[in-house]
């Protein structure tokens, strides 16, 4: 029997084609090139040499460590700041605040990195304030927060950008529960700590997990901020990948693709965790 309703597969076809060809296709070619297969250069037989070279190199593991450290630290700090902000917003319950909190979301990452330079570099505004306050005597007396070995400028930029994002994702479950729940807990004698442990955290837990995965995968794979605010060595994996890719030496290309592969694996693991574990719980949360 023919129904006049069009088949879902037909409706999905254009999007499947576009994302299938552009995204999966692009990743497939990247995978192929990581095995050294480049038909344009007459190299057709796959080899694991490049994977071995990369996995045996110090540069890769230092870069991996740096990338994971920056992404993890930024994720934890942004989530913590976002949670505090969300609780504050839910308590205040005013719309203009949530609008204001969205400001950093619209500021492009490149501009956010620029703001970090203006505020936090050793001749930046905070250093000048510290000088006025008599805390330091020269720019060098201010701690290095930009192009520093610990990636502090990068992490702070991400926290400023992503904390409001986290807050906006955590706000709905808190707002839905309303002030009443917290007041009730307080009336029943729950202390501040108990209210956090037994009321606030269970309310936001699924959303918090989702937000953490989104921020982690973004900060793990992003290029602009670590390029602008990082050191020349070690570099994060995305920065190293782009540099190898743009190198005129074609032997660098498979190496760049191995880097890309690692980035893709790490971030798709986050998607898998998100969709497999957290999205169903989020959906259920909405239904109740």
């Amino acid at each position: 029997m023919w129904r006049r309703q069009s088949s879902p597969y037909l409706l999905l076809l254009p999007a499947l084609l576009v994302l299938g060809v552009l995204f999966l296709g692009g990743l497939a070619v990247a995978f192929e090139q990581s095995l050294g297969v480049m038909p344009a250069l007459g190299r057709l037989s796959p080899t694991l040499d490049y994977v071995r070279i990369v996995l045996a190199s110090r540069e890769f593991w230092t870069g991996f460590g740096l990338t994971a450290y920056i992404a993890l630290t930024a994720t934890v700090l942004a989530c913590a700041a976002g949670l505090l902000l969300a609780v504050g917003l839910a308590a205040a319950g005013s719309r203009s605040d949530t609008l204001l909190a969205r400001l950093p979301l619209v500021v492009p990452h490149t501009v956010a990195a620029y703001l970090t330079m203006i505020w936090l570099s050793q001749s930046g505004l905070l250093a000048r304030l510290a000088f006025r306050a008599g805390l330091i005597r020269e720019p060098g007396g201010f701690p290095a927060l930009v192009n520093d070995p610990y990636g502090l400028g990068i992490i702070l930029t991400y926290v400023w950008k992503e904390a409001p994002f986290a807050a906006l994702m955590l706000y709905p479950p808190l707002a839905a529960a309303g002030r009443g729940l917290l007041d009730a807990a307080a009336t029943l004698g729950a202390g501040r700590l108990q209210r956090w442990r037994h009321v606030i955290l269970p309310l936001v837990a699924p959303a918090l997990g989702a937000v953490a995965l989104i921020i982690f995968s973004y900060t793990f794979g992003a290029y602009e901020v670590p390029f602008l605010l990082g050191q020349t060595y070690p570099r994060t994996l995305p920065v190293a990948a782009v540099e190898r890719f743009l190198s005129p030496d074609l032997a660098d290309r498979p190496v760049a693709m191995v880097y890309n592969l690692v980035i893709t694996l790490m971030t798709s693991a986050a998607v898998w965790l998100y969709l497999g574990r957290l999205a169903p719980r989020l959906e259920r949360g909405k239904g109740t």
Partner: protein
Amino acid sequence: MRRLSLLWFGLPLVPLVLWSVAFGWRWPDLLPAAWSFRAWHYLGSPPAGLGPAVAESLFIALAVTLLALLIGVPAGKALGTCTFRGRRAVEFLFYLPIMVPGASAAMGLQPWLIRLGLTDRPAGVVLVHLIPALPYLIRAATAGYAALDPLVEQQARTLGATPAQAWRLVVLPALAPALAAGAGLVFIISLSQYLLTLLIGGGKVVTLPLLLFPFISGGDRAIGAALSLVFTVPGLLLFWLLDAWLRRYRLEVRL
């Protein structure tokens, strides 16, 4: 709370304005010693290339938005209204580009796009911008369709509306807020792409972020600040307008 958020989110942007009109701003001055519109004059002059970069950015972002609407709305309808086999796999594919960097795919695509003659041209850049942008539109359209009562379209048809009329007069107005939110997001995402534009545009497609980047990585501070403002303000305006409009529908713009 309001004061705190103003301090934390608004204050960091203030020095951008000051830098853009500063005539030198030396250590350890807290304010520029002298003022000048030099940076803005430079940006207004043809060698700065601001006009063409703005036009290129807007053209690409509009093209990406239109394509994303054309491709994403049907997909949203399928996901929002139908149950079908393979749904989880489809959702996984549509979610991947939100979290997996599109740059990795773009680096793989590059040799093919060269062969097709699509590199160094806006067309290729539009294609790769779709990778990070399209999933957001699909999500928005899915939410829009899921909230739509499937019976209203049938009712319109029963009352004698043609399929086109039912879509235009009943379905589209109901979907409009969700689609506007999605389209606004897509527009902003395309506008702010640096790496994808560089990789596929080969430095020949110069959008605003490409114009801005050299100034940030160590150029003239005043010009960098002025350009940053030019780069940030349109997104801000769009966001604010969308928010004001969507508030009537109790929808929120999600990033």
